[in-house]
């Protein structure tokens, strides 16, 4: 340097020093001066000794350095951007010559300010050393932060290769790559020498030692050693199961490892939970097979764990102590690898635990449905195959139960898992309300119930119904029909193993079993128990199908039954029944049928006559009473009762008619002058009633009963009918009879109307009988009179005396209606009681009779009209037909009466009814 330059430098230096050196207040000037001088000397020396700068002057380089530093130090590029702007501005300035030097100076100064804390008491040995000493400086600073200790080569390899984000643990590591950059660049510059080139070897050496980690506790090999135990759910020294649901991971591990261990903990915990479940022994058969299937899978998992353990052992044996982390990365087995290896097993375990979770509280068919739903509807094919595997195992007890049910009819279900459940006696009674349905009916209907909830989804609803029927029938055959032998032989020959997955075969077997069983049952019913014969017999006797028998019975019983009910004796009734059987075609029926036929008396109440309490009975016992239920028997009796009454009226009217007709030729002819007109009216009325009764009977017997019977036969003899079908058909048959037979309909009370009508008819018959007796009495009287006249004439007296003529006048004078008001004379000759019609009160009797007859016939008419009106409005075509037939010549005006008004206008047709036969029109 030139002198002037030196001077300038000195001057400037002095000035600078003045500015830099601080002043301490209270310091005496001597010390300050001394300080100043020291500083000056030092500065001067160093400046002179430094010489030329060592680094080649490259402005761009230095600006890059500065930029990097700014970015590094501040984390945001904005300062670097600002610097860039300033730098470009600076470049454009012409003034400064030593731009590079200036920038370099600033750069160096700034570096030193940040590293100022660590400068400490160091001697300046060059910039390279300074650089170097910075590096060890920072690790000590951060030594207490554990997280960055974990920088094993494994992790670096793992994270850098897979591009995983590394946790921002250390600020040193970012420095590392950055610091490599300056070293890279320095390498590129060939003429670099000195401190900077010395940086490289220093830094390379310090890289391994730089990653100064504290060994993690517990170390990875330890963790690996314990892993197989953990995966089996056993506590190990490092990973302890604090409870059955939690695994403790030692807290001293870094976070990436912790997350790995989390992943590995999942199968361990799952396995633990699952093995607990598998050990538990609640639940039924299906539950147990579920558990065994799961344990099979778990065993496979354990196999995997064993393999893993083998691998780990092998790897641990290969560990190299010298390498960092004992070279575990090179051995090939790390925690991360284990995670990969257990991934699929974890999925399986997860699925199993989901199943276990959902299966709580379910059993039997529900459990099967659950697993089946996994195999059917899940999207993941892995899940589906898994569930399929389980299913074949789990459904085995179910199929066992099914097989027994189908082929033996026995329910072997200790845990109530099957979808057919047996009901005990009390339950049945509760269901039916005091066991109304007794006998075999309840066995058939109620002993077994189909539980829809327990039907597994592997079989369809229809299938389940079939299965239910088959088993029920088999059971019924065995117990109800007493045909256990057949069941045994059948089960022996037909029973075969049922399995899951064999759907076509299964359906085939079930179809076969169904057909065979049903056919057997029907044939049993028909042959052994003569079901159809009994139904026929019921129709013949109870429904009055056998006319000859009924006629004889009625004849023989009629006298008896006229007497009051409490004078009837059972044996007389039975004797009459026997008599009737012997004298009709009924004697040709089989003994079995006749045995069941019986006559009985219903409960008596006061004032009833025999007709009201008599009934026939047909005994039905098991198993036929499955079809003819007790309720059905009651319906039969009701119909019998009704038909019997109608028959009785018919019989009564018929006998009256007979008497009238025969009497007309003899007795009544003689008195026709007096009562002839009455007789005509009476005859017409009786004919009307007979017509009515006949039509009614015809309707019921032929239109209703026969046609329903035909339907029943058809239904019963269909080839595919089951017992349930038969029951239904029979019930329908009875229902239609009761309904159409005017007994059962709810809205209109046909029964009551008909009963009234019958009563009216009977009363009319009595009245006609009265008329008849009156006529007979009259006739007798006339006979006597003429006999008396004859005897008197023979004696030579007057044939007819005053007394006689008086009495006679009353009797023999053709009496016109209305001219009956004769003073009654006491007839000395006939001191009969007043009421005797043959006596002297004929005046009263005959008019009374006439009035009565008229009233009755009017009443009859009215009732028939009402009945017809109701019948016409029935929805059933048959009933309308009845109405039409009864009123074929429109003689009646059907009246649709309102319920409140008991009677409507009486028929206007009475005068015309007298000559109604053959006449048409209104």
């Amino acid at each position, binding site marked *: 340097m030139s002198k002037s330059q030196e001077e*300038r430098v000195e001057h400037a230096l002095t000035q600078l020093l003045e500015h830099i050196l601080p002043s301490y207040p209270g310091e005496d000037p001597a010390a300050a001066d001394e*300080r100043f001088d020291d500083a000056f000397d030092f500065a001067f020396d160093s400046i002179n000794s430094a010489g030329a700068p060592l680094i080649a002057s490259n402005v761009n380089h230095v600006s890059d350095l500065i930029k990097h530093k700014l970015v590094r130090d501040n984390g945001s590029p904005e300062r670097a951007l600002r610097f860039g702007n300033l730098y470009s501005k600076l470049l454009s300035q012409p003034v*400064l010559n*030593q731009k590079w030097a*200036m920038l370099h*100076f600033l750069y160096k*100064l*700034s570096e030193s300010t940040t590293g100022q804390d660590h400068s400490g008491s160091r001697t300046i040995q060059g910039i390279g050393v300074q650089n170097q000493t910075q590096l060890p400086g920072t690790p000590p600073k951060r030594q207490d932060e554990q997280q960055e200790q974990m920088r094993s080569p494994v992790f670096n390899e793992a994270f850098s290769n897979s591009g995983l984000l590394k946790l921002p643990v250390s600020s040193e590591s970012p420095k590392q790559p950055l610091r490599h950059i300056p070293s890279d660049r320095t390498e590129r510059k060939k003429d670099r020498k000195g401190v900077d080139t010395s940086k490289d070897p220093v830094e390379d050496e310090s890289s391994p030692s730089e990653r100064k980690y504290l060994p993690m506790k517990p170390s990875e090999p330890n963790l690996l050693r314990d892993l197989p135990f953990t995966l089996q759910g056993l506590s190990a020294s490092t990973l302890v199961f604090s409870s059955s649901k939690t695994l403790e991971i030692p807290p001293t591990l870094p976070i990436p490892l912790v997350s790995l261990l989390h992943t590995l903990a999942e199968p361990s915990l799952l396995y633990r939970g699952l093995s607990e479940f598998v050990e538990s022994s609640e639940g039924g058969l299906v539950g147990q097979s579920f558990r065994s299937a799961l344990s099979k899978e778990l065993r496979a998992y354990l196999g995997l764990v064993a393999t893993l353990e083998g691998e780990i052992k092998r790897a641990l044996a290969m560990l190299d102590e010298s390498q960092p982390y004992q070279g575990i990365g090179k051995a090939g087995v790390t925690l991360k690898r284990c995670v990969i290896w257990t991934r699929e097993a974890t999925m399986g375990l997860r699925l199993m635990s989901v199943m276990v979770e959902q299966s709580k509280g379910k059993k039997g068919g529900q459990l099967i449905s659950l697993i089946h739903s996994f195999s059917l509807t899940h999207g993941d094919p892995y899940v589906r195959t898994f569930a399929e595997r389980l299913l074949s195992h789990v459904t085995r007890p179910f199929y066992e139960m099914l097989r027994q049910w189908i082929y033996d009819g026995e329910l072997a279900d200790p845990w109530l898992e099957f979808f057919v459940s047996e009901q005990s006696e009390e339950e049945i009674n509760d269901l039916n309300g005091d066991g109304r349905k007794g006998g075999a009916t309840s066995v058939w209907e109620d002993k077994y119930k189909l539980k829809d909830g327990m039907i597994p989804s592997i079989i369809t609803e229809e299938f389940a119904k079939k299965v239910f029927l088959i088993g029920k029938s088999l059971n019924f055959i065995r117990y109800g029909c007493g045909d256990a032998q057949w069941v045994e032989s059948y089960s022996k020959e037909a029973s075969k193993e049922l399995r899951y997955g064999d759907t076509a075969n299964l359906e085939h077997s079930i179809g076969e079993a169904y057909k065979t069983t049903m056919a057997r049952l029907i044939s049993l019913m028909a042959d052994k128990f003569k079901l159809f014969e009994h139904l026929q017999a019921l129709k013949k006797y109870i429904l009055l199908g056998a006319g000859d028998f009924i006629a004889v019975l009625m004849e023989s019983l009629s006298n008896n039954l006229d007497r009051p009910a409490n004078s009837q004796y059972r044996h007389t009734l039975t004797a009459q029944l026997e008599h009737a059987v012997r004298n009709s075609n009924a004697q040709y029926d089989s003994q079995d049928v006749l045995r069941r036929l019986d006559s009985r008396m219903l409960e008596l109440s006061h004032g009833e006559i025999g007709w009201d309490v008599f009934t026939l009975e047909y005994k039905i016992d098991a198993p036929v009473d499955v079809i003819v239920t007790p309720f059905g028997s009651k319906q039969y009796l009701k119909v019998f009762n009704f038909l019997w009454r109608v028959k009785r009226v018919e019989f009564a009217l018929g006998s009256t008619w007979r008497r009238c007709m025969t009497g007309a030729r003899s007795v009544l002819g003689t008195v026709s002058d007096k009562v002839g007109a009455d007789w005509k009216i009476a005859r017409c009325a009786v004919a009307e009633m007979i017509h009515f009764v006949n039509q009614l009977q015809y309707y019921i017997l032929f239109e209703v009963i026969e046609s329903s019977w035909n339907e029943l036969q058809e239904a019963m003899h269909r080839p595919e009918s089951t017992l349930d079908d038969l029951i239904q058909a029979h019930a329908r048959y009875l229902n239609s009879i009761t309904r159409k037979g005017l007994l059962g309909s709810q809205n209109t009370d046909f029964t009551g109307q008909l009963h009234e009508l019958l009563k009216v008819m009977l009363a009319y018959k009595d009245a006609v009988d009265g008329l008849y007796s009156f006529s007979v009495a009259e006739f007798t009287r006339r006979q006597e009179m003429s006999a008396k006249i004859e005897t008197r004439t023979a004696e030579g007296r007057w044939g007819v005396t005053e007394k006689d003529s008086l009495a006679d006048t009353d009797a023999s004078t053709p009496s016109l209606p209305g001219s009956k008001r004769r003073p009654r004379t006491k007839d000395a000759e006939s001191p009969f009681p007043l009421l005797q019609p043959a006596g002297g009160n004929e005046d009263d009797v005959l008019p009374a009779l006439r009035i009565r007859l008229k009233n009755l016939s009017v009443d009859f008419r009215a009732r028939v009209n009402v009945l017809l009106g109701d019948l016409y409005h029935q929805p059933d075509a048959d009933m309308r037909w009845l109405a039409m037939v009864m009123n074929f010549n429109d003689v009646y005006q059907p009246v649709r009466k309102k319920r409140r008004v008991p009677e409507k206008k009486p028929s206007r047709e009475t005068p015309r009814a007298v000559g109604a036969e053959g006449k048409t029109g209104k």
Partner: protein
Amino acid sequence: MPPTDAEKRQAAREVIDILQEIATLLNTNLNRQQLSYCVSLIENGVNPEALANVVRELRAQYPQPSEESEPDGK
């Protein structure tokens, strides 16, 4: 035209401004006057690294009681 003095001074001021901004960015804790003296020293050929060392040493040896350096002078 050769730059006039005024222009030179203007330019010098600008340069100093720029340098001062840079120095602030780099946290060098140099105020304006110190910076200008450093500039002149370096312009006169002083080794910048040596100068930086000097500054650093002096700062370390004589830590400032306050941020501002009040030259007390001699």
